[in-house]
């Protein structure tokens, strides 16, 4: 419990620091210091982390830059218990998306980690989005139907922030566990709504909605100031569109400007989110200053240069209660202020990959 107490203490400090981070973002030296301190505390709770560092020849009592601290692949959340929270204090968990038949990542949370999670979530959300007067609408199911989805939890917080009711969710869970959209209900609201709309959903749900609108010959003229937020990939749940195609269709289908469309990048294994910014026709994702991105060359394991594709690692201090540095399965390039996604690793996993490799 002593080790956990040190995690709690860090969490409280970070919680307070986030509140000031809007005006005073974490600088490089401060981030470096906090990251090492947090890693040491997490390693004290999880011997696996400690052994990883030792095997890499890292001496944690020396100054180690955050870029050198071991990152845990997101896949490992599927098989290891990656949490500093004692079992009796765990109250909920987020699962990665996926079917019931495949192993899914499990990210444990307790009351304190959720408090930190929400502070991270809402601080960065408010910094990027002004939607208090909007009618919030989501293409996902609501939190009672999908209690372990970090995405739905996030959208639910956005709903509360916009002061809207539970009738804002138009996703339904089908018999096979897949998410579907109640087109009738959604379209009825969209037809009548006079306030600006804040419409959120996964990329594949937007594709389903746009396809249905096309089939019915529908085009919505959303009130000025409306915003659309899309997130996530397709994972075989709909036909696949490029970002440009999807955004082009969203722009026409809902009569909004491209700058009214925003992408979110997040995952159940992290506690912070990145939003993209459209500047000069180019979109780039940005995390808050307490989460940093490192792109490593798959070939050499070293950081890639600007414009070069690398595997995306996120060092998220808000993951105080689990593991701070996470290696994703996304490929990305660094841009001046953030990063752009450039595809995913092959879906193949050692236990389930196809014979195509042979």
């Amino acid at each position, binding site marked *: 419990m002593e080790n956990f107490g040190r995690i709690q203490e860090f969490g409280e400090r970070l919680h307070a620091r986030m509140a000031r981070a809007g005006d005073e973002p974490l600088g490089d030296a401060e981030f470096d210091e906090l990251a090492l301190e947090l890693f040491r505390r997490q390693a004290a709770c999880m011997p696996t982390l400690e052994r990883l560092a030792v095997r890499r020849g890292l001496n944690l009592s020396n100054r180690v830059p955050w870029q050198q601290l071991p*990152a845990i692949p997101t896949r490992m959340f599927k098989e290891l218990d990656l949490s500093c929270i004692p079992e009796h204090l765990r109250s909920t968990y987020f699962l990665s998306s996926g079917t019931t038949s495949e192993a899914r990542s499990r990210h444990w949370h307790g009351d304190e980690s959720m408090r930190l999670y929400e502070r991270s979530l809402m601080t960065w959300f408010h910094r990027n989005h002004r939607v208090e007067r909007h009618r919030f609408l989501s293409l996902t199911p609501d939190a009672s139907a999908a209690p372990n989805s970090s995405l739905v939890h996030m959208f639910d917080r956005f709903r509360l922030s916009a002061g809207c009711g539970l009738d804002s969710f138009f996703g339904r869970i089908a018999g096979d566990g897949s998410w579907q959209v109640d087109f009738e209900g959604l379209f009825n609201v969209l037809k009548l709504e006079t306030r600006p709309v804040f419409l959120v959903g996964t990329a594949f749900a937007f594709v389903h909605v746009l396809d249905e609108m096309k089939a019915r010959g529908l085009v919505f003229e959303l009130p000025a100031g409306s915003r659309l937020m899309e997130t996530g990939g397709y994972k075989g749940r709909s036909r696949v569109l490029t970002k440009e195609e999807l955004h082009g269709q969203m722009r026409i289908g809902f009569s909004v400007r491209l700058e009214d469309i925003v992408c979110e990048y997040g995952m159940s294994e992290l506690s912070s989110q990145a939003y993209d910014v459209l500047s000069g026709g180019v979109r780039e994702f940005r995390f808050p200053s307490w989460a940093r991105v490192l792109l490593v060359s*798959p070939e050499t394991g070293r950081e890639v240069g600007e414009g070069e594709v690398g595997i995306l690692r996120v060092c998220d201090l808000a993951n105080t209660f689990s593991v701070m540095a996470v290696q994703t399965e996304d490929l990305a390039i660094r841009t001046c202020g953030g990063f752009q996604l450039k595809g995913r690793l092959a879906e193949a996993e050692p236990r389930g990959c196809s014979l195509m490799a042979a």
Partner: protein
Amino acid sequence: MAFEIPNYFMADLGPEAEFTTQMVTEACLTLRRNGEHYLKTRDTAAIIRVLSLTAENWLEDDYPFRKIALGRGPLETGFAREVLQAGLDHFFGQLTGENLEDLLLQELGHLKRLDRPCAARCEAGANKESLATGPDLITHYAAGNVPVPAMMSMVLGLLVRSSQFVKCARGASFIPRLFAHSLYTTDAKLGSCLEIAEWKGGKEKHLEDVLHQHSECVTATGSDETLDAIRHRLPGRTRFLGYGHQVSFGYVTLEAMGGHQVKRLVRAAADDVIAWDQLGCLSPHVFYVENDGREQALRFAELLADELEKREKAVPRGEVSKRAAAEIASRRSMYEVRSAHMPDTVRHWCSEGNTDWTVVYENDPLFQLSCLNRFIYVKATPTLDDAFKGAEMVREHVSTVGLACAEDEKEELARRLARWGATRICPIGRMQKPPLTWRHDGRPLLGDLVRWTDWEL
């Protein structure tokens, strides 16, 4: 002036060339006509002469096609010069007159079977003679990874006097094309019975439909889905020979690990990982090593890692795509965490600063598909039965089992492996070096191509 590849085959026009149905139709008609004039009129001995002479040339250092293959090959194929050289030398070293005759005897029972009605000694009692005839035109769909299967298909087709259209996967025609040119140079008439082209499979359905209309036989190598897609598009009368993707593994017994030859065994295992950068279907994904609690498998893995590191300089792995490197990197980081979490049951070793080679040891006989490019699993197993259980999921897809064991274990193990489903068993170190007479996927080599005519006297 450097020797240039002449323009003769469709693939010589470069990967961007676009073809029309008319061009493919004309190619098929020309192939059939040439076959009628230049193939059907020759006897087996003449065909064998051209093949073996060409192969001899390929083994000469100053043979122009060999020089191009080894010079431009690394860029065109992604294999390092040393890997290409070893693979090509083995293939052409096997392509001798003697071996081709052995193949005919094995497959058809008589050397003259394709020339005239004849009877092997065991058939004499039935008072009949038989003649085998190949299709007039064969279309081959050749897979991407390794060039040898495409060349072998061409050899088999020529033996049965078939004209052949070889459709290579995108970016995979380089070596088969050079082989076709070399045959053309040895004997232009025989070379005129071959066509080589490349396009992305399934993208040019209208061209493929033309091929199917003109071919009596279609062969294809690829994933089960690819094979199904082709099979469903064929006219009913067309014969189809599909070779699905296969996996291979090695098996090392306690006896083999107990001897003085362990170092030699590990060198041989490294040969199998290095050959064709592990990308062929005869390359091992896993080495099973019997373990009785004395860490034999762990020791094998350690030694194999040392050996791969040593060999990397002499026989470097080719460059891999960003995606392939990312898959290796991602698996490595996963095993790094697993080995920190369960140090007694998982270990891993990898090349420093690059993705050149990786060895993963797991004390768990569950079969793992490797991401290849010299990423090899070493799995401890108490017995062969445990390995069978672990590999049950790939049982239908197992090609080769490389075997290291004591002399007196051999026959029993071979019998059990064969009953279980392996279609080829060979010593470790020779997994990627099958003899010319190797029956691909356990099927006859010529028997599926020819039509028999029995003549009762």
